């Protein structure tokens, strides 16, 4: 259908070295963006919308940290505070983290990396962006019309019977965002299977592709379960059908099982693509083949499969059978192993390399540091005896922020810096980028490390007011949050600046390996390659 050829306008991007039309210059009107089926343009649409949601969610985080500076609940009412952390969670999880790397960088890079002209289903790709935006609008409407206060986990029967806020709007927002995620995963699976360029064998694929393949499996297998669960909660709220209502014999714990069956693997939807990014960046900036390619590739699949068998570790204190808890605990320990393998392999890749410290590499090293701490504290939480004490405290909050912010968002930042020249054709100011990476790294630690301590001391999460003895750690955390917030604003400024003033990037500014660097322009042409590339090299052939 709409594979219309857009005519380049000679007055734009009229440099002499720009002979070919890049995807950015193939059409300038709004229609050429909103009805585009070009995976690269859709990636840009996602990038813009996700940036909006990231700062929206960040704004809620700022208000949370402001409230928690003092033990008393003095900045806002308890009800408002509850809405703040709920909307922070909903926005960040469903409208930023889950789409983040797959929707932006996966969309942009999967076809480029495997030598395809586009994803297998370009129109479905566009549809998935519209579904995402529709979900995002519903979520945003829930916020505008007074917010939602159930916590992002929507636990029944609070969400289904007791809460007086816009639960249905927010839940439906998550539902549509979920379908967008399913369609993205479906597209990646078909593309990776069927559209690889000649010579691009499975074991020549970049690890970024392996990571996205594993992520897609989770998106397809997990998301529909939470989708139907959300529908049941909405029906329970609307019509009082009884499935989650204990007064009628319904089981509120069933909701937790169904919810975590998706929402635990969803953590791997956030972290696996990030791991893929790190593999690319580490190899490029140490000019080394990755150490143990197969181990890393299969550990991604291992995480995807095992990740589905551990959801019960969110429910050790829920009164589930002790034997069920035992099984979930042992499986949870097993899923730690593939993550450990990756960290060791990345470290070993640096050995005898030629290591440079460009901004993407700084973020990647930061990722390894933060993910190591996040992963190890995950082992604490898998441990039955310890989990009972720290469950639903700030220890958990700190742990998953180390994984999601320290892991997933550091990976997102690494990707943004690494592929920015490819996406926009411009270089960003390197000095500022390095400064920002340090500000983010230290701001992050100061924000979240104290939360481990205050969590072990016993401060429960989702508390609007708290006993005075916890204050010192909360002040440190809030101080860190202000640094972290600043750290995220710096890149926002210099990336926008670079669009106009940044130096033009060559096709391969990092001397990296991979089809997207070696065979495509910066920014790539509309159909990525002049002719279908033929792959005759091994992967990471530095």
């Amino acid at each position, binding site marked *: 259908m709409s594979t219309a050829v857009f005519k380049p306008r000679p007055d734009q991007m009229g440099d002499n070295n720009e002979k070919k039309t890049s995807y950015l210059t193939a059409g300038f009107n709004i229609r050429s963006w909103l009805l585009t089926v070009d995976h690269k343009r859709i990636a840009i649409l996602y990038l813009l919308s996700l940036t909006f949601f990231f700062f929206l969610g960040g704004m809620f985080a700022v208000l949370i940290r402001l409230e928690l500076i003092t033990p008393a609940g003095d900045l806002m009412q308890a009800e408002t505070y509850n809405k703040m952390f709920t909307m922070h969670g909903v926005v960040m999880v469903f409208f930023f983290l889950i789409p983040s790397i797959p929707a932006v960088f996966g969309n942009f890079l999967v076809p480029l990396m495997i030598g395809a002209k586009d994803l297998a289903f370009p129109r479905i790709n566009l549809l998935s962006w519209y579904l995402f935006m529709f979900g995002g609008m519903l979520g945003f409407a829930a916020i505008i019309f007074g917010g939602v206060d159930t916590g992002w986990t929507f636990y029944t029967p609070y969400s289904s019977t007791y*809460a007086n806020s816009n639960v249905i709007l927010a839940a439906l927002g998550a539902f549509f965002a979920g379908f967008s995620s399913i369609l993205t995963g479906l597209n990646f699976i078909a593309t990776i299977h069927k559209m690889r360029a000649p010579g691009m064998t499975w074991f020549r694929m970049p690890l970024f592709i392996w990571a996205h393949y594993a992520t897609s499996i989770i998106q397809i297998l997990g998301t529909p379960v939470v989708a139907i669960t959300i529908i049941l909660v909405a029906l329970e709220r609307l019509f009082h059908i009884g499935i989650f209502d204990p007064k009628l014999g319904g089981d509120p714990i069933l909701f937790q099982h169904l919810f975590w069956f998706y929402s635990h693997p969803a953590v791997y939807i956030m972290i696996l693509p990030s791991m893929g990014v790190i593999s690319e960046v580490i190899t490029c900036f140490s000019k080394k083949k990755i150490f*143990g390619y197969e181990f890393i590739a299969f550990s991604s699949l291992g995480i995807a499969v095992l990740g589905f068998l551990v959801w019960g570790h969110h429910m050790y204190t829920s009164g589930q059978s002790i034997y069920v808890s035992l099984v979930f605990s042992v499986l949870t320990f097993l899923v730690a192993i593939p993550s450990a393998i990756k960290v060791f392999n990345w470290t070993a890749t640096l050995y005898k390399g030629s290591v440079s410290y460009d901004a993407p590499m700084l973020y990647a090293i930061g990722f390894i540091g933060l993910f190591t701490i996040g992963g190890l504290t995950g082992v604490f939480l898998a441990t039955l005896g310890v989990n009972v004490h720290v469950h639903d405290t700030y220890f958990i909050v700190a742990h998953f922020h180390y994984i999601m912010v320290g892991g997933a968002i550091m990976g997102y930042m690494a990707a943004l810096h690494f592929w920015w020249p490819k996406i926009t054709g411009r270089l960003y100011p390197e000095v500022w980028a390095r400064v920002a990476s340090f500000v983010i790294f230290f701001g992050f630690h100061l924000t979240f490390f104290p939360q481990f301590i205050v969590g072990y001391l016993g401060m429960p999460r989702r508390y609007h007011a708290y006993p005075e003895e916890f204050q010192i750690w909360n002040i440190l955390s809030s101080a860190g949050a202000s640094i972290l917030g600043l750290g995220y604003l710096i890149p926002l400024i210099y990336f926008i600046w670079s669009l106009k003033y940044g130096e033009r990037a060559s096709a391969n500014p990092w001397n990296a390996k991979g089809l997207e660097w070696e065979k495509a322009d910066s920014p790539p042409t509309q159909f990525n390659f002049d002719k279908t590339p033929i792959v005759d090299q091994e992967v990471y052939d530095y």
Partner: protein
Amino acid sequence: MFKEFKFFPEQASTLAGEVDLLFYFLIAVSVFFSSLIFFLIYVFAVRYRRRSEDEKPQQIPGMLKLELAWSIIPLILTMIVFVWGATIYFDSYTPPKDAMEVYVVGKQWMWHIQHPTGQREINELHIPVNQPVKLTMATEDVIHSFYVPAFRVKKDVVPGRYTTMWFEATKTGEFHLFCAEYCGTKHSAMIGKVVVQEPAAYQDWLSGGTQNEPLEVIGEKKFQQFACQTCHADKPNSRGPSLVGIFGESIKLQNGQSVVVDEEYIRESVLEPNSKVAAGYKPVMPTFKGQVSEVSLLQITAYIKSLAKGGSN
């Protein structure tokens, strides 16, 4: 303004020391591995920094033995931690036989506590030191979670069923009691304290204040108020089975199966009387759902339990 930088919470139960020991071990393992990683990254990053743009590092595709080593060693370590953690969990699961029973009902947004001797407290729990205490917990509305950090114990209180937990305090004093499962607007105000006292002081507390009837006596009154005794009288040809001495026993059901009479079964029989009818009786009992509160239900249960001890009706 701030007391001091405190890193670890007080240990005030038999469980606390065990949990902390495992926690310290985990910290040690974590510090070792993260230091190792950070150290190696630092050394590699400095030692092998890029000196010229066109240097060609030696390529190492992998080393199977090394990779197997760092897959298997963490596996062994995690299995050790698993067994250790599971042992603690198991111990913390089964209350000792001599545990003192206390009944807890969570409600938006307060904790209602009943002692067997009839004392009732709101957001406070008085217990004697060095005495195992078993809590049987219910909720009137949403999920709550009973959490005493100094004891390292936590258990969700789930609507529609009883959950139980136990602990043995080893220190006198006052300790935080938190609701740990988000339960609505005033979740953070659903807090209180556990007051651990020397046995003598505890006895004083029990006898002080307004004179209370023991829980089973209150329960007996409720039993009559709901006219339970019209059918469950302890005499032949009653419409319902006698409740004397049945608590803790296994009884036969109409459908041929058998069931142990415990708190949960009594609860179910009051709210869903016809789901597990005792053998030899007709399913004629009406439901008391919506009429009897969780608090009263626990009182009636205490009464039925007292019948098991050889009381009579």
